[in-house]
């Protein structure tokens, strides 16, 4: 009895060991491919830089920065009563029109962007892969219904819907992420993932799984979805780009009720009429504007690099 159970546990762990080894091997191979491409590395570097900002912000507030002065939302520095003030030793990127430290605002907003990005991308990827797999696997009416909804969503510019939704409901960052995720889940990526799923569906191992008595649920979640993951990961990157961009635009247009974000920083600058004063007030315009551009393009670049791994056809022309 003990013998057989120990055998089983041995067998189990060796399966996991084998899986881990396989995973490490494929990860190493993919990393080598990814590292070949400077574009992807640049993107990854930018993302890591912003992650560093996110991590450093609470540490700085607890150690070096006085929380009253450097609070990103309502901080005020008694030593610099005239705001907005240009960069100085105390405020490396200057201060905002209401007296907050711009670097602190920038770092604090980066956290919001990452929350939004991760959440929106997760929703999108989970939903597109599931929808694409289901549409491809069942076909018929289910496929038709899903694809007609996709047609409808592709047809309408997502931004116009987001503008109306954010005007109707007061959205928090999390709710906005869910809405963006949901809209892009029914976007073009579903079409691509469905066509990918269709080509996997006719592979022999799916047939084998069915012959071995696997149910629909088992086949979809154990065989179809894992094989869709690489391409889903790719679309995850592009959907992050879209999510960051949409949030920034909505905040910039003043339609979003979040405490602080890069878009809101630009919105304040615009409302107070500093937005065209490039030579004197650049620190009110470029830190926020370039952060939005850099972070969203970083995810786009990583997506492009992943594209070359996922679609070997594109490699080294």
């Amino acid at each position, binding site marked *: 009895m003990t013998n057989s159970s120990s055998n089983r546990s041995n067998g189990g762990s060796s399966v996991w060991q084998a899986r881990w080894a396989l995973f490490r091997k494929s990860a190493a191979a993919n990393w080598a491919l990814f590292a070949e491409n400077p574009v992807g590395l640049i993107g990854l570097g930018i993302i890591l830089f912003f992650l560093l900002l996110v991590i450093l912000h609470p540490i700085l507030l607890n150690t070096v920065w006085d929380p009253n002065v450097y609070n990103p939302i309502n901080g005020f520095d008694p030593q610099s009563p005239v705001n907005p003030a240009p960069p100085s030793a105390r405020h490396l990127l200057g201060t905002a029109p209401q007296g907050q430290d711009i670097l602190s605002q920038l770092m604090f907003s980066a956290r919001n962007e990452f929350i939004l990005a991760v959440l929106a991308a997760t929703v999108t990827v989970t939903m597109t892969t599931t929808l694409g797999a289901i549409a491809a696997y069942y076909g018929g009416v289910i496929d038709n219904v899903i694809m007609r909804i996709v047609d*409808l969503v592709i*047809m309408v510019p997502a*931004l*116009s819907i987001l503008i109306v939704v954010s005007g109707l409901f007061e959205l928090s960052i999390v709710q906005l992420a869910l809405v963006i995720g949901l809209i892009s889940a029914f976007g073009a990526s579903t079409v691509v993932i469905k066509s990918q799923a269709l080509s996997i569906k006719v592979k022999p191992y799916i047939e084998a799984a069915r012959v071995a008595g696997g149910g629909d649920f088992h086949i979809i979640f154990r065989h179809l979805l894992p094989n869709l993951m690489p391409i889903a990961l790719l679309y995850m990157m592009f959907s992050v780009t879209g999510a960051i961009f949409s949030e920034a635009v909505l905040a910039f247009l003043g*339609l979003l009720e979040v405490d602080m974000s890069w878009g809101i920083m630009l919105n304040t600058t615009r409302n107070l009429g500093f937005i*065209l004063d490039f030579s004197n007030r650049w620190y009110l315009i470029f830190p926020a*504007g370039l952060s939005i551009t850099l972070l969203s393009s970083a995810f786009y670049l990583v997506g492009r690099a992943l594209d070359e791994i996922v679609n070997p056809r594109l490699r080294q022309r």
Partner: protein
Amino acid sequence: MWSYIGKRIVQMFITLLLFQIATYILIDLQPGDVTDLLIGNPDITAAERARIAADLGLDGPLPSRIWTYLTNFYTGNLGVSMQQYPRPVSEILMTRLPRTFTLFMAATILSFWLGYIAGKFLAWKRGGAWEYASTITGVTLFTIFTPLLAYILLWLFARQLDSWISDTFGIDFDLPISKFNTPSLWRRAPYDTNTVFSWMNWNFFAIVMIILIALIVSNYIPRRYRPALRIGSVVLSIGGSLIWWAFISGVGLYAWDIVKHLFLPILTLTLISFGGNMLLTRTSMLETLREDYIETARAKGLPEGVIRNRHAARNAVLPVWTALVFSLSNTISGGIITETVFSWPGIGATLVQSVSVSDFAVAMGALTLIGIMTLIGHLIVDIGYVFLDPRIRIH
């Protein structure tokens, strides 16, 4: 082919209906209705409020309200604006639609054409500094935060370049930084802005038509007359219109004012879509250049220009044209942002403005018009595809 187009039109109409129903339900999800605005008014009792709601048809079940909304919409009744009461929504939108349409068409055509030409040459000159420069430019334009790009262009053209030109040459362009016209100038104008603007649109349409017809006709005449006809049609139609606007129409000054206000929004929107189109043409062209028939053309000893323009580029344009379906909605989103940044009163700016003051009758109208514009855009792309790809025509 006609049955294909007919089928697409029917499909498009069904999509539009579904879209309208979806947006109605979206608005309906919001708690409360318009009579809630009267709650604070002591003169209006709860019973009176219920009567107003019944008058407006707000007490019926959802399907009947959707039916009312749709029948009203298709009989041209889009409600009245709350903000500019009692101006009908259709009137507000109709004065703004031609502007957005022009902006959108100009930017789409320009960016597609420029992106096609740039991508074609970049794929040809593969490698080296060109490749890096083009990729960086393309990705930057593709991912830059649109308002930032708009402000950079505003600063560059309307502030720096404008003052530089007036300092050096003494010519004052006075490039405006916002709005659709200069009110102080138009106060003495014999016609209103929209009239002059519609003449300009018709004039532009006529120029395009003349050039197109000349291009088609030029394929059926002896080869040596072709350049004369092609160049002649371009010079005559554009030159003739310019002369008409400047000396004969009497409203040349006003038209110039509109052009000045149009310049920066069109430039911004063109640049936004240009990056994506260029990158895509380049990729698709690189893929086409590896095809066997390109090798054959080379082996035949055809000139480089012929291989590039006739053999490769014409096939490479197909995926770019297909991608227009997706980039159309990008361009429209970009248009909303551009119009807002430039305070340029088109449909997009109207949408943002009406949403920010909760004027939902206008917002819904604007949203539906944006949907219709995208749909028509898709239809044009589909029909264009039939002409571009003969394989579809035969099936």
